[in-house]
């Protein structure tokens, strides 16, 4: 019997043949398409949710606020648990599939939901689904990619994902534009895309994608599961990256504040608020692949840290107070650059710093720490905003961020993981 339970990261990850040369693995593209379909589904609903809940269901904005809180919070809590489950069973695919399926069921629930209780249940289920699928999916991307081209793989995935996030609201508004009260139609179409996403996953992403151990192991009944120990997850490398990414996230105050600061200084008129998100999304999707390639070439940890420079520049635009249109455009684009340089890169870095057997948990840990730090940053910045005003607040955060970047750089360099070659097994 062939048995290998060693914590050594394995080179050949899955049954799937490794792509040669310049191609991104088929699994990565398929996972990207799954995310695209799912994001069309979720973002079309997100775009109409405030209107739908207050105008049609008749919930007050107070109740909507409670729902929105659920929306934000639930997801990060379940992420680590799902990562753990994926590693423990050594099957990220079914865990991720369950996550996608939960969101599809939530869409169905939303169509029939009538009151506060049922709607918040449906929305929580959707967010739990999102939390469940993220880390196992990223682990599958990592497992299905040539380690030397990991950044680009994540770039391709995030670009496809963002196309979905851009098309979703567009689809919703086209429907509402044609059908005055077409909320039901948006929900039904959203359910359709969710079902297609789940089906794509179920049909075209093999069950064992991302599995680390050999098939033979399944016959071994005594110890069918891996014990996921925190000791093996929290490698010095992952701890350092999680710490640096989390610390920088404490200085990531969120697009909303950058846009509001621009609004305060007259950079644009209020009704264009939603367009800014679209602009940032477009910049993100255009740059996700080039940034991933850059990360592969010059070092992912390096790009992860230096990717915060465009964020600092966006703060500077927002603080400039010139009220000129170009500062608004620049800030929107710079935020897109920031996401392109950091979002996929974090998963790529984290996935390579832990043994392959605990990859989902490792990725989930880094992502959860970063997400929670960003929530804290938004709350803290809100206080600062009212205490010293938007301009001074933006300048302060910008200055601290610029000072923090070299520190983060040094911390990651000391662990000598800046070069992707060194984390290769």
């Amino acid at each position, binding site marked *: 019997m062939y048995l290998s339970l060693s914590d050594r990261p394995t080179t050949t990850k899955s049954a799937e043949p490794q792509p040669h040369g310049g191609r991104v693995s088929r699994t990565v593209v398929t996972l990207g398409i799954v995310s695209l379909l799912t994001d069309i589904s979720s973002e079309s609903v997100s775009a109409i949710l*405030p*209107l739908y809940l*207050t*105008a049609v269901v*008749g*919930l*007050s*904005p*107070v*109740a909507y*606020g*409670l729902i*929105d*809180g659920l929306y*934000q*919070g639930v997801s990060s809590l379940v992420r680590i648990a799902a990562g753990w489950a994926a590693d423990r069973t050594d099957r990220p695919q079914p865990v991720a599939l369950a996550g996608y399926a939960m969101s599809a069921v939530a869409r169905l629930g939303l169509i029939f939901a*009538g009151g*506060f209780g049922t709607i918040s249940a449906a929305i929580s289920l959707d967010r739990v689904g999102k939390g469940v699928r993220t880390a196992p999916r990223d682990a599958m991307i990592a497992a299905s990619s040539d380690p030397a081209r990991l950044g680009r793989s994540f770039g391709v995935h995030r670009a496809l994902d963002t196309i979905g996030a851009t098309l979703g609201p*567009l689809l919703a*508004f*086209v*429907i*509402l*534009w*044609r*059908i*005055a*009260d*077409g909320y*039901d*139609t948006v929900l*039904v*179409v959203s359910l*359709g895309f969710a*079902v*297609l996403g789940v*089906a*794509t996953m179920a*049909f*075209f992403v093999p069950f064992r994608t991302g599995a680390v151990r050999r098939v033979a192991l399944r016959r071994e009944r005594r110890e069918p599961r891996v014990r996921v120990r925190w000791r093996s997850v929290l490698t010095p490398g992952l701890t350092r990256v999680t710490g640096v990414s989390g610390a920088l996230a404490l200085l990531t105050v*969120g*697009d*909303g*504040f950058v*846009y*509001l600061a621009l609004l305060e200084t007259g950079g644009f*008129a*209020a*009704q*264009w*608020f*939603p*367009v800014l*998100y679209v602009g940032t999304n477009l910049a993100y999707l255009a740059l996700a692949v080039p940034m991933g390639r850059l990360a592969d070439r010059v070092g992912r940890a390096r790009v992860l840290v230096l990717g915060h420079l465009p964020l600092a520049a966006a703060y500077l635009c927002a603080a400039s107070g010139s009220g000129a249109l170009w500062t608004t455009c620049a800030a929107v684009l710079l935020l897109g650059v920031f996401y392109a340089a950091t979002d996929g890169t974090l998963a790529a870095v984290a996935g390579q710093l832990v043994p392959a057997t605990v990859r989902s948990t490792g990725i989930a840990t880094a992502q959860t720490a970063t997400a929670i730090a960003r929530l804290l940053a*938004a*709350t803290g910045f*809100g*206080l600062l*905003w*009212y205490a010293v005003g938007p301009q001074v607040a933006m300048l302060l955060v910008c200055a601290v961020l610029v000072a923090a970047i070299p520190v983060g750089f040094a911390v990651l360099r000391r662990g000598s993981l800046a070069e992707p070659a060194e984390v290769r097994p």
Partner: protein
Amino acid sequence: MTRRSTLFGALVVLVTAAMTAYALSAIAEDDRRTSRATAAETTSLAQIEKGPRILFRHTGTDADYGHVGAVALDDPGGARAVTDLSCDRVYAQARSISCLATERGVVSRYRATDLAISEPGEAWQEVGGADLPGMPSRTRISPDGRLVSSTVFVNGDSYMVSGFSTRTVIRRIDGKSYGDLEKFTLVIDGRRVAPVDRNIWGITFAEDDRTFYATVATGGRTHLARGDLEARRLTTIADRVECPSLSPDGTRIAFKEADEDGTRWTPAVLDLATGRRTVLAGETHSVDDQIEWLDDDTVLYGLARDGEAVSDVWALDTSASATPRVLVPEASSPAVLR
């Protein structure tokens, strides 16, 4: 082609066909609805404007859905005049109308439009307006028609911090804006404070064009605040009062009182001199509207029919045991004009 691909292909066709069929039937239903003439008896606006009247938003599911309508005060269930003006929220005084509307598009835009006449019976003219930063919620006009307020929900704000956010602005109808009320000095329970999470909504104006009342929410509590437009100050005077509405004689505030969860509201009345509250529990539905006064002891509000886009305007006596009745069917956003 493998069996797997065939199955998947079949599923794609099935799901796409189902989505398309649903969308097409919804479009057909929408076309049917928007081409249907209103079922209510109609008359001309000039006829209605001869006497006291109730202005409202017509909610019959027909070609005039969302348009501003009017009925005679002495025959509210009778013939109505329906205009071309389309609003999500509308309010009026004798010579001014405030209309908050959504201009749907790939990016929905929201607009406040002010209309005015110098003599009743003339054609309404657009005299001003402003772009709104979010979805319309409340609007009111001061008794003399000079001041207009609007409250909207700002979606952009809630993106960054969990929770909803409102923006309330008071403008003069001739153009000058007093700005965002969150920037006014805020005094809660006698102490000057500047909480981050303050939200202000639901304005009602007094006769003097300076005093107004509003809901101020912060730290999970809602307060009734009296505002001073000249001093740019809001001072809280009571708790658990939302969407105040000052009675015509200026002595009482009608409002909606939230239950413990903050998800259901009951209409209530507060006597400003004595602080006595009367909860109008005869209304068992949750009322989410800014109440309007029909006269000094009757209030009006819009209430959606269960699971329908249609709402009706209900009237309720301000004694605790009174039961509500439908005053104007197929209507919301009532405004009483004398």
